[in-house]
């Protein structure tokens, strides 16, 4: 059986798995961006308890393994009355995990915006929220896009773990094919290629494009 025959025979599983992975990635990325923004800004809050909550979140999700977090949120949280279906538990956990890394990126980028920008915005009598949203965050964004590009690839790779709580993503489908056919090299080889193409030819170029657009917006390109 040639590799092409293999692909033809299992394309439906590979395609549906890829689509689920795509959905998991996009949703996890959105969760990660939101969690990073919220926790990064909370870490800069004047109130200590607010900073504390963000620190605990970042510490827990950065300091433990994504797989354990997945099992926790999918198997243990229901014991506390919070049940998520596996699809939701998957992207939420991956998003929260990488959002904790992103939170540090947001905090660092906001802090590195020159003090004079805050002062100029205050001199225009802008409220604290407007200063952050209109003046500081857009500039911080430019500085943190390159590391976010790496983080996005990590998020994509991280979604492969959701197969372990039986989300039918690319990894899950690949294992099914392997279990049914024992064609391990073809099955896992296909997964490798699809993940690589996804990261290298979709996620990374998209982030680079975003970097260029933002650089142009700020007049640096």
């Amino acid at each position, binding site marked *: 059986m040639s590799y092409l025959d293999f692909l033809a025979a299992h394309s439906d599983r590979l395609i549906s798995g890829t689509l689920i992975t795509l959905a998991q990635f996009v949703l996890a990325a959105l969760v990660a961006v939101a969690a990073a923004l919220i926790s990064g800004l909370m870490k800069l809050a004047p109130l200590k308890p607010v900073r504390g909550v963000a620190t605990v979140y970042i510490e827990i999700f950065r300091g433990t393994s994504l797989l354990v977090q997945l099992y926790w949120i999918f198997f243990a949280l229901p014991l506390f009355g919070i049940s998520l279906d596996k699809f939701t538990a998957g992207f939420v956990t991956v998003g929260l995990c990488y959002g904790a890394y992103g939170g540090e990126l947001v905090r660092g980028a906001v802090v590195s915006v020159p003090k004079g920008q805050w002062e100029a915005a205050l*001199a225009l009598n802008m409220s604290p929220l407007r200063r952050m949203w209109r003046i500081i965050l857009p500039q911080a964004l430019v500085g943190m896009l390159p590391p976010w590009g790496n983080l996005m690839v990590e998020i994509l790779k991280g979604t492969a773990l959701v197969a372990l709580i039986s989300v039918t993503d690319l990894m899950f489908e690949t294992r099914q094919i392997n279990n049914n056919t024992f064609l391990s090299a073809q099955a896992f080889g296909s997964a490798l290629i699809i993940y690589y193409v996804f990261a290298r030819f979709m996620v990374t170029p998209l982030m680079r494009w975003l970097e260029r657009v933002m650089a142009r917006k700020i007049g640096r390109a």
Partner: protein
Amino acid sequence: MTDDMSRYPLTLEGDDAPMVRFQNVTKKYGDLTVLDRLDLDVGAGEMVTIIGPSGSGKTTVLRMLMTLETIDSGVIYVDGEPLTHMERNGRLVRANAAHMRRMRSKIGMCFQHFNLFPHMTALGNCMEGPVQVLGMSKKEAEERALELLDMVGMAEKRDQHPARLSGGQQQRVAIARALAMRPKVMLFDEVTSALDPEVISEVTGVIRALVDQHNLTMLMVTHQMGFAREISDRVCFFFDGSIEEQGTPEMLFDSPEKERTQQFLSAVLEAN
């Protein structure tokens, strides 16, 4: 330090009330007293220039007035009302955020390093405050911004980002941005110090036009003695956190009384 607040009036009234008053204002950073019981009045429409050696507290005076720094004692008044304080049950207490916001709208500031918003065009910089803070319509804000950019000679560069502008051009946009908020008091902190010599006159020209054509109250820190002499109503010489000597430009530059003033001026003259 406890400060008996009853000695400070709740408001400044009367025709001769100054636009800005520092009364007994002290500012410290840790153990370092940067300004020591400063008293300074600036009349409505007056142009007061602050000169003095580096580290004497000139910038701090402007930053306190812009509410970029808190003060440790004393009261600052703007337009008859306390800026750093507000009235509660007949006495002055520390101003809250809402009071400071209301008062801050009377003041505009230009910085040594311009601090334009790099992600906005020249026009965008000048529209940001009017639209976001004053709630003006985009159309109206744009008209006003264009008028001001025209006044500072930057109308042609309206669509350029700050990174594409020279220092002198950026500073002129920064002046237009501050004026777009229609302040009563304008603060200039060494606005030409970061500029190449050949473009300094672009900026001093704009300030000169403001002095001639508008009834703004202005407080300016500068090292350009010639410019200070030409446009100031009054010059204050700061030394070590207090006003060593003040007077009309003629008095201060031609016949300074204090030895420190004489030393400073001759040192500056030599440097030029």
